[in-house]
C-alpha cells in the first residue's frame, strides 16, 4: 500500500484519480516522442529562447540517446465471439517495471484499463464492446515518458462465425459423417461386414442366463456421471438390451442410480424394454432406484445391495472413478459374474483385474451396435473403423514428416 507504484495504481483505480489522470494525460498520439514534447515546450517561451533551447535540446537528446517510442499492435482477437482485442508489442530495452495500459474509444480520452508486468509482451483486453473502435497506449510505471509506447492503430472487436482453430475437427468430423452415410446406404443395400468377436458381449446373455438358473437377480450399475455424459447415454442404450433379456427370462433386475436425471431415464428405459418384449406386467417400480448423488455414499449403498441381495450377475457399465474397484471387488467377493465397460482409461486396470469381462473404450461404445446386429448401426461401426485407419495413417505420415523437418501436418491436427 505504501509504495509509490501502489499509490499510483490506487489513484488510477479510483474515479477521481482516473479523471485527474485523464486531464493530465489526455493529449494526443505522439506523447511518447520526446523530441516533439521538447519542441512544444520550448517554442512557447519566445523565439530567442526557443532557438537556444532548441539547440540545447538537440544537443541534449543526441548526448543521452533516449529510447524511441515503440509500436503497439492492436487487433481483433481471432476466432472468438467478439468483445476482445489482442495487443502485442516489443518493449524497449531497458523496459519499464510495469505498464499501465490505457484505452480510449476512437477520438475520445484515455482511461486506464489495467497494470501489466514489464516483462509481458502481449495482452488480451476482454472488456471491450464488439463493433466499437479503440486505441491503446502503454504508459511506463514508474513514470518515464521516454518509455511510453506509441498510440496503437485503431482496432475493433468483431465476432467470428467460424472458429478456424477447429478446422481440423471439422475435417475429421466431415469425413466421418460422409463415411457414416455411405456405409449406412451400403448396409441398407444388403452389404454385411465382419467384426471381431468381443467376449464381453457374448457373455452378457450368458451372465443373465446364469442368474436365471441360480434364481438370483441381475445388478446394473450405470456409472456415476450425469445423464448428459456420453458414457451414461451409452450405458442407457445397453440397459435396454439387458432389460429386454431379463424381462424375457423373468429374472430380477435392479438398477441403482447415482443421479436423479439418470434415474428418470433408466426407469423409462427399463419400463419400455419390458413393454417391448410383452412383459409390462413383470415390471416393478422399485427396480430402478435413485440412491444418492454422493460418490462414496452411493458406493456404500450399492455394496450393501450386493452383499444383501447377492446378485448372480453384475453389470458395471458407464463412467466410473475411484469407486470402480470398491464396486468390482465387492461384486467379486459375492461370486457374481461381472461385466464392466468404461471409457475412463484410469479405471480400466481395476475392472480388468476384478471383473470377468471388460469392454475397453471403443468396445464399450460399439457394444449396442454389435448386440443389435442392426445393419445401420453396424454401418456406423464400419465408419469409425475406417476413420481410425485414416488417423493411424495420419500419425505415421505426420511422424515421418516431422522426422524430415516438415511440421505442417502435425500443426494442422494440433488441438488447443
Amino acid at each position, binding site marked *: 500500500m505504501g509504495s509509490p507504484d501502489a499509490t499510483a495504481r490506487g489513484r488510477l483505480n479510483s474515479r477521481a484519480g482516473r479523471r485527474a489522470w485523464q486531464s493530465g494525460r489526455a493529449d494526443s498520439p505522439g506523447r511518447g516522442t520526446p523530441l516533439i514534447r521538447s519542441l512544444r515546450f520550448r517554442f512557447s517561451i519566445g523565439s530567442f529562447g526557443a532557438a537556444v533551447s532548441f539547440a540545447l535540446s538537440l544537443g541534449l537528446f543526441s548526448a543521452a540517446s533516449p529510447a524511441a517510442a515503440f509500436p503497439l499492435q492492436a487487433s481483433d482477437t481471432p476466432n472468438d465471439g467478439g468483445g476482445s482485442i489482442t495487443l502485442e508489442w516489443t518493449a524497449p530495452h531497458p523496459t519499464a517495471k510495469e505498464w499501465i495500459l490505457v484505452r480510449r474509444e476512437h477520438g475520445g480520452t484515455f482511461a486506464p484499463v489495467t497494470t501489466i508486468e514489464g516483462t509481458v509482451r502481449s495482452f488480451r483486453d476482454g472488456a471491450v464492446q464488439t463493433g466499437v473502435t479503440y486505441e491503446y497506449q502503454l504508459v511506463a510505471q514508474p513514470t518515464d515518458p521516454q518509455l511510453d509506447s506509441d498510440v496503437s492503430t485503431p482496432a475493433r472487436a468483431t465476432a467470428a462465425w467460424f472458429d478456424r482453430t477447429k478446422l481440423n475437427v471439422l475435417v475429421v468430423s466431415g469425413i466421418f459423417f460422409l463415411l457414416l452415410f455411405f456405409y449406412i446406404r451400403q448396409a441398407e443395400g444388403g452389404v454385411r461386414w465382419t467384426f471381431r468377436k468381443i467376449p464381453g458381449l457374448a457373455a452378457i446373455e450368458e451372465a443373465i442366463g446364469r442368474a436365471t438358473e441360480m434364481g438370483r437377480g441381475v445388478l446394473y450399475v450405470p456409472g456415476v456421471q450425469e445423464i448428459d455424459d456420453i458414457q451414461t447415454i451409452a450405458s*442407457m442404450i445397453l440397459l435396454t438390451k439387458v432389460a429386454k433379456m431379463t424381462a424375457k427370462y423373468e429374472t430380477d433386475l435392479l438398477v441403482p442410480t447415482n443421479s436423479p436425471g439418470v434415474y428418470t*431415464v433408466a426407469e423409462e*428405459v427399463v419400463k*419400455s424394454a419390458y413393454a417391448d418384449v410383452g412383459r409390462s406386467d413383470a415390471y416393478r417400480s422399485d427396480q430402478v432406484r435413485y440412491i444418492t448423488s454422493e460418490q462414496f*455414499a452411493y458406493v456404500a449403498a450399492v455394496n450393501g445391495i450386493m452383499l444383501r441381495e447377492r446378485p448372480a450377475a453384475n453389470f458395471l457399465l458407464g463412467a466410473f472413478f475411484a469407486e470402480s474397484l470398491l464396486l468390482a471387488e465387492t461384486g467379486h467377493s459375492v461370486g457374481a459374474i461381472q461385466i464392466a465397460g468404461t471409457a475412463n482409461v484410469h479405471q480400466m486396470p481395476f475392472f480388468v483385474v476384478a471383473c470377468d469381462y471388460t469392454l475397453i*473404450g*471403443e468396445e464399450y461404445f460399439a457394444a449396442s451396435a454389435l448386440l443389435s446386429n442392426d445393419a445401420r448401426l453396424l454401418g456406423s461401426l464400419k465408419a469409425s473403423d475406417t476413420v481410425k485407419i485414416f*488417423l493411424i495413417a495420419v500419425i505415421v505420415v505426420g511422424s515421418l514428416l516431422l522426422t524430415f523437418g516438415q511440421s505442417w501436418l502435425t500443426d494442422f491436427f494440433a488441438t488447443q
Partner: protein
Amino acid sequence: MKREVPILITLVSGIFCLIAFFVPHPFVHDLYGDVQNWAIVVVGCTYVLGVANLLRINVRQAQRMEGDWIYKIVLILGLLITMAVGFSEGNYYSDVHSRFQWIYRTFYSPMTSTMFALLAFFIASAAFRAFRIRSPEALLLAIAAFILMLGRVPLGNAIHPYIPAAADWLMEIPQNAAKRGILIGAALGVMATGIRVILGLEKTYGSGGEGGA
C-alpha cells in the same frame, strides 16, 4: 408420436450443439448457453422425482419391516433431518458454523472417508490376484509392475538409479502409447454413439410397446 417427438427434439438439439461447437458468434453461443441452462433446470426438477422414489421405496420397506428395515429408518430420518436443517438455515447453510455444516463434518465426512479408505484393502486384494503369473502376458505385467513400484520409492533409487529411469520410461512410452490408442478409439466411439443417438438410430426411449430394436 410418442417416439417421433423425443427423436425430433434430440435431432434438433444435437445438431444445434454440434454447430455451436464450431461457431463462437454470440448469436449462436448465447442460445447455446440458454440450452445448457434449460438442461440444468430439467436436472434440478428430476431431484424431486429422485427424492420421491427414494422415500417411496424405503418407507414401504420400513413399513413391511423387511430385512435391515432399521437402516431404512436411519436413512429416512437422516434425509429428512438434514433437509429440514438445511432449509431452516436458508442462505447461511454453508457457513462454517452452521448446523448443516456440523452434520456434514460430524457424520458425512468421516463416513465417506471411511469408504474411500477401504480402497487400500481392495487394491491389495485385487493386486494379489492380478500378479499371479499364469501366462506370459501376466509375467510381463508382473515385471512391469515390480519395476514401476520399485522405481516410485526411494529404495529403487538406492538400489540403482536406472530403476526410477526405467519406471519413467514405462510410464512415458509404452503406457502412454497404449493409453492414447485407447483414447483415440474411445473418441471415435463417442462420435459414432453421439451420431446414432442424434439421428435416432438407437432406440432407447419412448419405444414402449412399439417394438424397439
